[in-house]
């Protein structure tokens, strides 16, 4: 049953504030975090809730992000519901422990206001931080709106804590573009969130009455088996994700899918992008459609695990896929998102032309004209029958 309208509270919230509100309603046991722009408001708001007695959560204001993730692992090991938040350099400092969190199967929710990595130091949005942690074993969900950030944060706990998963989940929002942008957000009553999530039921907690050894040394004879199990767990995510979204949709009428498809059915050229770029891409597609161009959009929400089948199905018989991505993998064949798409499409019967446009690094604006520029180029490449592996748009060369 969808929650009655008069029970829903509506507020104008930034992406950060929407996440903070979601965390507040998820009855966290522990939040350990360190300030970093543009994530800081999440922690500030949460600390305010704590100061006003609105949450029963141990907030640990750690001395570094490395310790933030470490304290989260310790807390999660006891069976607690745990979250943290970070971005950019902070996320990079956590890097070592991200792998530990995933491999030790700690269902931590990690909200990230995606931001460029240094150097030069830059506080604005791109996806270098998220792409940098892509092999850590975290589930990665990228959001397009404050509402989606709120909804996804709540669902993230249910996915992470599912006994078939037990993996940490990253919820990404674009730094400043979404983290500091006020949007209308519908919030559920807290008791509904409480019922939806339930209380975490740990499988094998660190408990003084039941001695176990966690995080041992495993060498050539056992390490690989740990990884085999971890791989199996992340492959279960789509199944659980769909189940959780279905339940959430019953309450709210909202669901997002692992990918969002927009006018892809008959599309000849498909724009593929993540996070807030999805919104711009959809507006561009509308305008181009008015001009008779058959354009569609895929907005990828789940980057890990990568939804191969859904992507291939959505691309269908399109002639070209234009990827707009906000990260570089220096020296690679293409950049991270395009590499995934190219691999995913390798077995496809009608392989489309794949264009990789790197845009928006360090918060460089990605206006509709950038998409149009890519579109014009793509049409030319289609005529010629060849295209560069990747190119950058919107940068002085």
């Amino acid at each position, binding site marked *: 049953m969808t929650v009655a309208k008069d029970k829903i509270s509506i507020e104008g919230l930034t992406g950060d504030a929407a996440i903070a509100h979601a965390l507040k309603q998820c009855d966290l046991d522990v939040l350990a975090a360190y300030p970093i722009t543009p994530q800081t408001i999440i922690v500030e708001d949460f600390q305010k809730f704590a100061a006003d007695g609105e949450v029963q959560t141990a907030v640990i204001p750690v001395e570094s992000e490395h310790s933030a993730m470490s304290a989260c692992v*310790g807390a999660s090991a006891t069976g607690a519901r745990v979250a943290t938040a970070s971005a950019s350099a902070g996320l990079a400092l956590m890097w070592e422990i991200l792998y530990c969190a995933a491999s030790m199967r700690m269902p931590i929710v990690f909200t990230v206001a995606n931001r460029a990595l240094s150097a030069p130091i830059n506080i604005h949005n791109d996806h270098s931080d998220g792409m940098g942690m892509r092999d850590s074993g975290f589930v990665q969900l990228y959001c397009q709106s404050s509402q989606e950030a709120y909804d996804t944060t709540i669902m993230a706990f249910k996915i992470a804590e599912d006994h078939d998963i037990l993996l940490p989940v990253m919820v990404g929002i674009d730094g400043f573009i979404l983290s500091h942008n006020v949007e209308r957000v519908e919030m559920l009553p807290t008791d509904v969130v409480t019922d939806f999530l339930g209380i975490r039921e740990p499988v094998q907690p660190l408990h003084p*009455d039941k001695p176990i050894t966690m*995080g041992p040394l495993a060498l050539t004879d056992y390490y690989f088996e740990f990884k085999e199990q971890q791989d199996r767990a992340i492959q279960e995510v789509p199944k659980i994700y769909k189940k959780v979204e279905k339940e959430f949709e019953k309450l709210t009428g909202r669901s997002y899918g692992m990918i969002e498809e927009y006018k892809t059915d008959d599309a000849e050229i498909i724009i593929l992008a993540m996070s807030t770029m999805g919104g711009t891409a959809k507006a561009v597609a509308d305008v181009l459609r008015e001009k008779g161009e058959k354009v569609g959009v895929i907005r990828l929400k789940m980057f890990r695990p990568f939804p191969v089948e859904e992507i291939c199905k959505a691309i269908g018989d399109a002639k070209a896929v234009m990827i707009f991505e906000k990260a570089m993998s220096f020296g690679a064949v293409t950049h991270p998102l395009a590499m995934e798409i190219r691999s995913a499409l390798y077995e496809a019967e009608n392989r489309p032309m794949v264009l990789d446009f790197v845009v928006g690094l360090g918060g460089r604006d990605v206006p509709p004209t950038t998409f149009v520029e890519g579109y014009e180029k793509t049409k030319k490449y289609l005529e010629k029958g060849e295209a560069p592996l990747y190119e950058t748009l919107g940068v002085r060369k």
Partner: protein
Amino acid sequence: MTEEAAVRIKDMLEKDEILSSGHRMCAGCAAPTIVKLMGMALRGPTVVCEATGCLEVATTIYPYTAWKIPWIHVAFENASAVASGVVEAYKVMHQKGRFEHEHVDVIAIGGDGGTFDIGFGSLSGMLERGHDVVYMVYDNGAYQNTGIQRSGATLPGQETTTSWAGKVSPGKEQRKKPIAEIVAAHKIPYVATVSPYHRRDFIQKFRKALEVEGPAFIHAISPCPRGWRSETGKSMELAKLAVETGIHPLYEVFDGEEYKMSGPSKRIKELTPIEDYMKPQGQFRHLFKDPQWEGFREQIQTWIKEDWELLKKKCGVE
């Protein structure tokens, strides 16, 4: 929280061991002894959070473990942060009625590398935030686990594989980081130095560390036959000499202010010359073989004496 500390031999034999035999620590290593002495002080529900190091790798080779009490390891530099998360999680889950124990003794353990160096930031953060955790460093004076490299705890004159004694070098040239005093400067309730040779002093101090509310710190000297190139049967003797020479004096610091010299150090009339401590160890051999280092040896002795006098003053000992 009622279980007594086992201080008398008879009681020690009856107290449950927390570390089983069959672990893979080196023969003569003092670290397992230190852990077992720690076990003698335990009083109730306990969880250990350990940093990467000799003790960690050699006691938990999957699928085996030597630990009979709950234990977690995450990484090298974060035992304090992990412990912070563990202790706060138990507290809040108890408040919410989801965890039966009102209190759990959370102990973090690290070697000197994991404490003096790479884990120092994490340790300092934990102390400043005031989590109710006992942190114990077992200090074997170098990164022994990776093959004897110098750390902030390495003594001047000590040869390691990154502070070689050579034609122009006497081994490590710098002084040892005064970790107990740095920790005490955080004004935490309790800091103590211990030696496994002085078992009664060790157990009593560890018990005190568990009993204070807020962070406590135990600095244990831990002879390492492999790195120190000493005889495996001499570890306890070296743990005794470390105290007698003033290299590892035994004392307590309350609230970062009140220094108290412990019995074994207090009874010292005159410091034993550092030669007595150094000569049984191959890692100092060059200081005696090569006459050019005589001056440096004297310098080390002077440093130790100066530190000793300063400590006596702080402890109000004449």
